[in-house]
């Protein structure tokens, strides 16, 4: 069918669906993050308390999933909006590559923090 559009792709639906699903997961993990970081403890939360918690694999697993979902949701959101303004294929590939690289770098730095911090003690 001739749509007479400059770009044709069916990928929009999957991106939209994953953005909604990641938003729901993100909400649950955000609550878990707040509760485990800020509300479980005795009085003022100190640096050592957090580092102590980071030794536990379940705690790190929640933080890892939180990091993964937040990065996916954020970068996918920027990409969805950026698509409004980009028509040239070259520009789209460049911006997409920058966003993926940014995601990988932030993921790496985040993982270092999560898995190395607890091991220091």
């Amino acid at each position, binding site marked *: 069918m001739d*749509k*007479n*559009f400059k*770009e044709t792709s*069916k990928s929009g639906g999957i*991106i939209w669906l994953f953005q909604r699903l990641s938003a729901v997961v993100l909400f649950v993990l955000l609550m878990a993050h707040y509760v485990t970081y800020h509300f479980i403890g005795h009085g003022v939360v100190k640096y050592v308390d957090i580092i102590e918690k980071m030794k536990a694999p379940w705690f790190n697993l929640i933080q890892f999933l939180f990091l993964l979902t937040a990065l996916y949701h954020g970068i996918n959101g920027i990409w*969805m909006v950026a698509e*409004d*303004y980009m028509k040239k294929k070259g520009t789209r590939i460049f911006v997409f590559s920058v966003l993926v690289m940014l995601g990988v770098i932030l993921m790496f730095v985040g993982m270092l923090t999560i898995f190395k911090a607890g091991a220091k003690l």
Partner: protein
Amino acid sequence: MSKEKRVIKILRYDPANDKKPHWVDYTGEYDSDSTILDVLNEIHWKIDGSLAYRRSCRSAICGSCAMKVNGQNILACETPIHKFKGKIKIEPLPGFSIIKDLVVDMDLFFEKLKKVKPYLIVDKPLPDKEFTQSPEEFEHIRESVTCILCGACTSSCPSLWGNEDYLGPAALLRAYRFIFDTRDDGANDRMDIVNDKNGIWRCHTIFNCMEACPKDIKITEYLSRLKVKIVENSI
């Protein structure tokens, strides 16, 4: 009825003489219940006959007189001037190119509307009498059929300002209206058309269209239902 002095600022543009649009002030005494269209008529008939604007039914049903007043997209014929305090700034609908003064080029708007096949497609044998729907079935499309195609929603959409190829809320709402019509058989065809980078997925649920709609149609909500149906259909 009390008359009050009001300053009306109109964004004027005549492509034959002006390099770019510019504001022109008109001061007059108007009844507080006068509509924006009454004021424009007054200016056009008594002060400056060169002022160009669209008008037709005066009953908020033809959709001709949509324009931007004090930052809001409205229908001039149904909006009283007492709704606005201070100066009244009247501009053409944003997002469309200006033909002259308040008259904008709606060609692309109607071309996009045609793309979604805005008519009933029936493959099954026609009934002897009229097509019937239950009240529950009609409820799905009850609001969306009241769209008058004034363009206020499409013109208020930031996604459209950034990408003129985007179908826009009015065309997508019309697609919704037929896709969710139980009498229609063209749903798959239409969903294939709107399931596109420049179709439904450029809608980022900004809600501007809903705020702009003079018929108070919950456009964003219906477009979200359409997204869900398309995803369900493609899984």
